[in-house]
């Protein structure tokens, strides 16, 4: 089995000023698993993902235990604002993300094949010369997803990557992510489509400030628990 990482989060707490956003989060993700994170808007999912990426000031402990050596982390952010007037086309954007060689000199030879294949799989190859600002919402999400796949990640953190992706696109996404999982990668996937989560997740955690429930979808995604997600939002 290829490289992956076991992640353990203990008593993670985080505040923005006086606003406590995460409180005593305990969480575990295993290599070779898709771990979905669900929860209401403002529940702290994006913040949690950023904590995992080491981009927040927080209390508590997050440990990464790589199966082999420290691997590559792919990240698909929830939103990306990019200056509409900037002449950055799809290939430029991917080059900016994945390589050190200046993007204006083109995609690095060693990634060229994978970039082509990935864009092809995501049905974006014919738009590779389009400006980022000329893409539709779903197309942008495809590109954001594409960059996270190059080079092959061993930990993939996805923040609602398919909100505006159509059905056939969603199937391609799922298939690719499943392939990474089969290779032993750890996948943390913030998702809001509960029906999909039930199909694809090995584990699911619901985060609303703290962990509301966590476990295998079959056993924790019952009516009583799901009701909790939304009633707790109202109670805030």
């Amino acid at each position, binding site marked *: 089995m290829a490289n992956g990482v076991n992640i353990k989060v203990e008593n993670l707490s985080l505040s923005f000023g006086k606003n406590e956003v995460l409180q005593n989060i305990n969480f575990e993700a295993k290599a070779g698993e898709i771990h979905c994170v669900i929860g209401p808007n403002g529940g702290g999912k994006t913040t949690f993902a950023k904590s995992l990426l080491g*981009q927040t000031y927080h209390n508590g402990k997050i440990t990464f235990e790589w199966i082999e050596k420290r691997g590559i982390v792919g990240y698909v952010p929830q939103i990306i604002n990019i200056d509409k007037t900037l*002449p950055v086309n799809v290939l*430029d954007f991917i080059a*900016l993300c994945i390589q050190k060689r200046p*993007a*204006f*000199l083109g995609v690095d030879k060693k990634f060229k094949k994978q970039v082509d294949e990935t864009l092809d799989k995501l049905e974006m190859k014919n738009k590779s010369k389009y400006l980022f600002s000329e893409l539709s919402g779903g197309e942008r999400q495809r590109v954001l997803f594409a960059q996270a796949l190059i080079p092959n990640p061993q930990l993939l953190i996805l923040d609602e990557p398919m909100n505006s992706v159509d059905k056939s696109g969603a199937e391609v996404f799922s298939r690719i992510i499943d392939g990474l999982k089969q290779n032993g990668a750890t996948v943390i996937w913030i998702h809001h489509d509960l029906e999909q989560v039930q199909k694809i997740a090995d584990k699911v955690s619901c985060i609303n400030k703290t962990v509301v429930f966590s476990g295998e979808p079959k056993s924790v995604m019952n009516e009583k628990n799901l009701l909790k997600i939304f009633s707790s939002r109202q109670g805030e």
Partner: protein
Amino acid sequence: MDFLYDIIRHSAQNLVQAGALPDSFKFAFVINSLLCALIIGPMLGAIGTAVVAKRMAFFSNAIGHSALTGIAIGIMLGEPVNSPYISLFSFAILFAIFLNFSKNKSGMSHDTLIGVFLSASLAIGAALMMFATKDINIHILDGYMFGSILTASNSDINLLLAVAILAIGAGIYGFNRTIMSGLNPALAQVRGVPVLIYDYIFVILIALITVASVKIVGSILVEALLIIPAAAARNITRSLKSFVILSVVFATISAVTGIVVPMEFKIPIPSGGAIIICATIIFILTLLVKIVRRN
């Protein structure tokens, strides 16, 4: 380096005698100014793309104005009136760091904060300058506002060349990471980019470039040459590659034409101004192209 400049000047003189170049090229100061133009054009054109991409045009403008204060301090501290480089560099770099620090820490909107700093640096600079130069020729002020490329000395060229090599080297090495830090800091960080450090390196680089170019094109005009060619290139390009190439080409053409045209046609305008006018003409042309394309 002086040796190299001499060779260039001699070959130019030979070419003038052979009738391959216009008469004015036999003068050393003309060659010097052209050398400056050939360094400043590519440097400002290339780095300008990153400035525009990171939406830091206003920021670099503030740094440009801070040069005035730096010069005034230099004169008061007794540095040579024509090249108070130590004060100039130190002040501009400190100013850039302070500006970036305030921006990061206050979370204030950039344009508001920079607006304050920009006016303040200009006011303080002008006041100090009046104070410092009351018994020196006031034309120093004029020179630093609008530059005097025709009086560039060997050591000015050396300084410019050193900063240009540094800037272009750093620009090539850090291009992706600098742009990514601006586009999406979270995504950049995942890729191992120390976003904060790159942020500071970039503003320091802008300060260095600005200061090294101040004497040549002036503290106000250096910013224009940093922004206008990149903005013009942005109007008509659809990839980063053509964006960078065209920006460099536009800046270089502007710098060279701005020197040669007034001289050849005996138009009595300062070279700094002429350079920016050329850049602006190019900008307007690209704007027209853009408008035509859109309809």
